[in-house]
């Protein structure tokens, strides 16, 4: 099975159990790689479906203060994509059960070489990538390599995306389509846009792949509200905040919190 298929199936499996799939985001190396490993196992035990694992970049321009700070902590370890893939390969050598997609800005991938990255990602067992500063018009070279290696090339759409454009983007997104819930950057929010459910429904009508909603989702009530309107829900900054506060003790707390989110994702 290809990486893209694994991602899609993990989401569909949750959907068959009448819930939205939960996709937690964490930044690798925050605060160190051992903690990241423990956190990933905690996510699996808590019932998450897919993991979005951040590769830190010096200039994260789509991220709010919480993930910016995580990035700074992670960068102290001077990580490389070689290290990242080795880490992922190590997890799968220990039978890690969830599909992992990397979330990262374009430059480190570009510098590594797209062809080489796609090949080595597949060898490591990584299932795909989300590159927030690579819109449709610039994505061709990456889409070609990802397709060749069966990796999920998860594309993003936003509230500002016109309907006709949304359709074109959905056509090339594999694994899932990422709907950015707010006009803005990542970070926990008290309020989500009022028309979010409606927009998600429209998005799902045209998308041939499952639709995940993310940005700003931080609480079980929000997950509960969105669960009937999306195949998957991404929660990032709220988890990163726990890691920030608890450091190496975070996995226990993260596990409990993600369990709550997974229950909230049930479509009652």
């Amino acid at each position, binding site marked *: 099975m290809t990486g893209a298929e694994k991602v899609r199936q993990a989401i569909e499996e949750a959907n068959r159990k009448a819930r939205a799939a939960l996709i937690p985001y964490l930044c690798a190396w925050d605060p160190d790689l051992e903690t990241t490993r423990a956190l990933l196992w905690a996510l699996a035990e808590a019932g998450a479906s897919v993991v979005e694992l951040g590769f830190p970049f010096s200039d994260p321009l789509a991220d709010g203060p919480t993930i910016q700070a995580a990035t700074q902590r992670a960068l102290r370890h001077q990580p490389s994509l070689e290290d990242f893939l080795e880490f992922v390969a190590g997890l799968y050598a220990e039978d890690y059960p969830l599909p992992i997609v990397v979330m990262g800005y*374009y*430059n480190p991938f570009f510098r590594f070489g797209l062809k080489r990255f796609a090949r080595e990602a597949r060898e490591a067992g990584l299932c795909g990538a989300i590159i927030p500063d690579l*819109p449709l018009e610039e994505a061709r070279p990456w889409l070609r390599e990802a397709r060749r290696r069966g990796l999920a090339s998860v594309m993003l759409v936003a509230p*500002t*995306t*016109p309907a006709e454009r949304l359709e074109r983007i959905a056509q090339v997104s594999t694994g899932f389509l990422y709907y950015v819930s707010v006009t*803005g950057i990542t970070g926990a929010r008290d309020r989500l846009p009022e028309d979010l459910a409606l927009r998600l429904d429209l998005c799902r009508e045209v998308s041939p792949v499952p639709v995940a909603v993310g940005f700003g989702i931080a609480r079980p009530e929000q997950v509960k509200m969105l669960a009937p309107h999306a195949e998957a829900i991404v929660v990032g900054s709220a988890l990163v905040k726990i890691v920030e506060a608890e450091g190496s003790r975070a996995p226990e707390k993260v596990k409990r919190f993600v369990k709550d989110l997974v229950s909230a994702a049930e479509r009652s």
Partner: protein
Amino acid sequence: MLPNKQGKFGPFGGRFVPETLMPALAELEEAYRRLKRDSGFRRELAWYLREYAGRPTPLYPARRLSEALGGHLRIYLKREDLLHTGAHKINNTLGQVLLARRMGKRRIIAETGAGQHGVATATAAALLGLECVVYMGAKDTVRQAMNVFRMELLGAKVIPVESGTQTLKDAINEAIRDWVTNVETTFYVIGSVVGPHPYPMIVRDFQSVIGREARRQILKLEGRLPDMVIACVGGGSNAMGIFYPFVRDQVVKLVGVEAAGQGLESDRHSATLTVGEPGVLHGMMTYLLQDRVGQIKGAHSIAPGLDYPGVGPEHAFLKECGRAEYVAVDDEEALSAFRLLSETEGIIPALESAHAVAYLVKIADRLPRDTIVVVNLSGRGDKDVAAVRDYLSGKTA
């Protein structure tokens, strides 16, 4: 005509931004292409440039500087230092803020490093009665406290940026984050020929007034085109502005001067085109200062306006196709030129502009008799005198 439809100059440029901004960039491009042909808009901009900013600027024959360099050259200074707010930055901010007003945007945001572009944006926003927010690296707000105060006097709100290296590149990140969040109401005034398409094109076009005037002036004064045009390169807007109208004149040699800071081997420089490598930052594919894995490195120069780890994509293109040459001079060379121009011409240049002068000083001996050289004096040095005094008295600048 470059850029092409995708905003590319050869392989460089483009639009590497979050999806949220893609429609806004399309809207901006559409509005710009329409207004560029609108005679009302062009008249309005020309009026402000003339009556408010002080255009045209003189092309001044620098005779005492020529003498000091051996007496064999015909050196001209394009006097952008005489403009309102003291640098070429106002050419661009007047253009963009007028564009914003025409597009019905009431809120202006900008990034600034040293504060020059922030002041020029705050000035244009005050003039046209628009709200203005300027992002500035927290470190820069301390180093350039006077410019913070200046922006505040002009009614702008200055927000210190605490993330990353707390300098210009992080201020740009934060401005982009603001724009992503407030894109419906807000116009982002970028300060150089950088960022996602159409910004490098728009800023180039607004700054090209420098080169159009210079070309006309030199033809009138000398009856022929110059042999060489020299400009300093930070993001590259003053250089692009003076180069662009000469690009098709193959006989004119175009030279961009970057900051070698404390030396190209020191890791404390801003010589992006000279020693950087291609990559993607701030929405564009261009040359960058980056490490092996693609993290962006900090930049350094004694000239705060050159302190940027990227460069405009059109410069990357002009370098690759060989139409322009890019070189670097270090802090010491720039300081010597700063003093030389002050003493020989009674013009205290901006430290950025002093880099362009310094390169001329460096190569003067090698140039044949009667070579005509135009140096873009992008700004005046009032903003730098305190830092230079500190530097010369032994403290670090």
